[in-house]
């Protein structure tokens, strides 16, 4: 379990983190979401003990990172934004070095082979890291974080620079790891977070703007359900009909035949909408219940944060 409390970090005049608090429970995949420069990496660097916070505390399984850095560090596997690889070492040599460095107490050769199989790098084990492609390097960095089966994994943008197939593989891997480990991973790709995480912490300009379960996220933020419609017919007539439906809050025409309807989230207005349109000349070509996508809610949140 990772508990972050009232974390602040100042770089000189600049306030990089401003009172960040959140908790990642064991067996949970926590997505850390934010635009570039929001403070994601800084937070992760503080949790892993690479940087120290200006104020606030980080506790991992009851150990405080400043009081007991060794205990905390041995519980964390960390994949930084740039994987910390030595280009002049072979994959196997590198992993062997980190195994020794982390003082892992497991059968060495067996464990390294196991980790290499998990991230699928056993075919390049003898190659020099400088000759590997970006995707392979990322995976070697991933392997390094997995060494010693740490209970907490902290991954800073683990899918950057990978091809779509590898991205899906890494996501599946993270999901699988989330069953046994506490995983905190950052991303600025929103669909990735919604596909992999149980919970999302959104951060913007060093502040937390949302901390919710993935499924509940869009509803809480918008406060209302959404319908997407494609309707043939006269625009004024249709708008009138839609606005007349009980529970509808707002109708917007997004394209010539496309409308978005915001309605009270506790009411299902689909049937009423259907009947209302049927009474006009119009015909519903498509109706889709669309909660706000993460992208949309994210934009809303960050705009609100700036106000």
């Amino acid at each position, binding site marked *: 379990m990772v508990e972050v409390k009232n974390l602040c970090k100042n770089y000189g005049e600049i306030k990089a983190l401003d009172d960040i608090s959140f908790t990642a429970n064991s067996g949970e995949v926590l997505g850390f979401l934010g635009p570039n420069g929001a403070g994601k990496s800084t937070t992760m660097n503080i949790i*892993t003990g690479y940087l120290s916070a200006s104020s606030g505390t980080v506790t991992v399984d009851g150990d405080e990172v400043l009081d007991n850095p060794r205990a905390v560090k*041995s519980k*964390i596997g960390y994949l930084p934004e740039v994987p910390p690889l030595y280009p002049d070492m072979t994959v196997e040599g590198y992993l062997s070095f980190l195994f020794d460095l982390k003082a892992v107490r497991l059968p060495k050769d067996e464990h390294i082979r196991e980790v290499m199989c998990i991230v699928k790098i056993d075919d390049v084990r003898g190659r020099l890291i400088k000759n590997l492609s970006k995707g392979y390097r990322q995976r070697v960095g991933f392997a390094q974080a997995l060494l010693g089966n740490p209970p907490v994994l902290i991954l800073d943008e683990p899918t950057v620079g990978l091809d779509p197939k590898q991205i899906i593989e890494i996501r599946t891997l993270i999901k699988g790891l989330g069953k046994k480990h506490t995983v905190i991973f950052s991303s600025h790709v929103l669909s990735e977070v919604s596909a992999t995480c149980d919970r999302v912490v959104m951060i913007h300009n060093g502040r937390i703007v949302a901390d919710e379960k993935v499924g509940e996220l869009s509803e809480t933020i918008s406060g209302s359900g959404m319908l997407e419609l494609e309707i043939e017919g006269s625009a004024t007539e249709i708008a009138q009909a839609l606005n007349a439906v009980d529970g509808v809050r707002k109708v917007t025409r997004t394209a010539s035949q496309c409308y978005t309807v915001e309605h009270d989230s506790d009411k299902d207005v689909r049937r009423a909408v259907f009947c209302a349109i049927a009474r006009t000349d119009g015909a519903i070509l498509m109706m889709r219940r669309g909660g706000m996508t993460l992208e949309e809610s994210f934009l809303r949140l960050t705009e609100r944060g700036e106000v």
Partner: protein
Amino acid sequence: MGAIMKRELGSYFHSATGYIVLGVFTFFSGMFFYFYCLYADSSSMTYVFSNMLMIVLFLVPIITMKSFSEEKRQKTDQALLTAPVSLTGIVMGKFFGAFLLYAICNSVFLLYAFIIMLFTTPDWAVILCTVLGMLLMGAALIAIGIFISAMTESQVIAAVLSIGAGLLIYMIDSLANLVGVDFITNILNAISFNRNFSNFTYGVLDLANTVFFLSITAVFLFLTVRVFEKRRWS
């Protein structure tokens, strides 16, 4: 610490650095050995060693220049600093890695001693004492080099600054002669590497000289740890 030391030593031999340093060291020591011992028909290696100071001043920066600067540039320091190892452990690992390479260089003197053995009995006490002096002086220079390397991201800057520091150390004796003030001259003489080292080359094992080099080593390793400690907080 052991893991870092092992990797550090290995990295010298993954690249050309280790071989070049060994080669240059052997070349110059061999040359001095030939002229001052074989050619001059002498069993005393004192002049060989006293001439090595200059070579060591140039070689140590080559050994230490990338020790921390390269880690920082490649961001591999993140792996070291987030591993369950203390800062002191990391710095000591780096130091001993570099020191071992330097010690391997110095082992060539034993070979020269064996060559002398073919002709006459070498003065083992003097030779071993001098090698100890070489190691102590090298340790001090390596600590200074590592400290400089920890402050920059560029190997070249680290090398240039370290060689600059080396030249300053080399010139301390001349500076001491130039300065007219007795007080300053005494201080400069006390911190002169040449003076502190020369006792070893005569086979004099003086506690003061030993402590001098050990304290320089300790001070600069301590400062290196502080550099990292400070970076974490800034």
